[in-house]
């Protein structure tokens, strides 16, 4: 039930949002003037009321979107995903890959830090050893021979 409610809410958001966006687009390009020009050029006068051009355009708008998203297809193939599904799965794959990459990078940097620490420790040990060696050369020679 809750999922249906959510779907309905998102559907309403998409409905009004896309409607608003197309109205803003029409305002942007000044479609009323453009249609007036087309009317005067094709039928010779500008009709007072909203005519066939606008109605045809509006219906075509819906048809175009449905065609683009492959909804009206002559051959109905069940397994064929719609382009939107492809796009969504692509995006999710990208997100998963990015998460994986971030994890790997963190691990790499951690291991690098650990390595660096180890190397530093080794160096320090060596330095300690060498400083000790300076004083105890004879002991070391003996130890190597014994090995």
């Amino acid at each position, binding site marked *: 039930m809750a999922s249906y409610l959510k779907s309905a809410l998102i559907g*309403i958001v998409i409905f009004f949002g896309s409607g608003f966006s197309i*109205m803003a687009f029409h305002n942007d390009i000044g479609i009323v003037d453009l249609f007036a020009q087309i009317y005067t050029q094709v039928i010779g006068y500008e009709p007072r009321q909203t005519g066939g051009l606008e109605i045809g355009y509006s219906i075509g708008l819906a048809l175009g979107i449905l065609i683009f998203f492959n909804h009206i297809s002559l051959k109905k193939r069940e397994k064929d995903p719609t382009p939107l599904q492809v796009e969504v799965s692509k995006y999710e794959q990208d997100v998963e890959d990015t998460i994986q990459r971030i994890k790997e990078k963190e691990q790499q940097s951690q291991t690098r830090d650990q390595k660096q620490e180890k190397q530093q420790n080794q160096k320090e040990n060596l330095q300690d050893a060498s400083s000790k060696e300076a004083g105890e050369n004879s002991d070391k020679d003996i130890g190597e021979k014994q090995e």
Partner: protein
Amino acid sequence: MSGSQILSWILWFLLGITAGSATSAGVLAFLLKIGIYPRMIGSSHTVRLVKFYEWMIILGILCSGIYSEYPNLTFPVGYWFVILWGLCAGMFVGCVSAALAEVLSIFPVLFRRLDIKSGMSFYMIMMALGKMCGAFWYFFHGLKP
């Protein structure tokens, strides 16, 4: 025509050619990059006619450009042509808006954020209906920029 007039005409001509080529390249690049033509051709399985489609794109841009530049130029064929033109223009603009929404990956991001797994056709139908109703509202209420 005096010499200076001819010179100015040539300069205007060159300016027109450069401006026109830049504009047409921009428009065509936008339409191609957004992937409308490939999808139309792909979904209709008519790759063999691609040369024809190219010529139709060129002719369409050329004719409409000339038509919009000369408002006195008329093409009186009757009312049916207006309806046909509106239908074709609407379908193309619908494709453009859908492709734009897809290229900007609005829906994938929205679906992931809101955790939606199924029912995409419902949202697509809602989008198409919303576009149509918005356009009807715009035209029948005489909204003007």
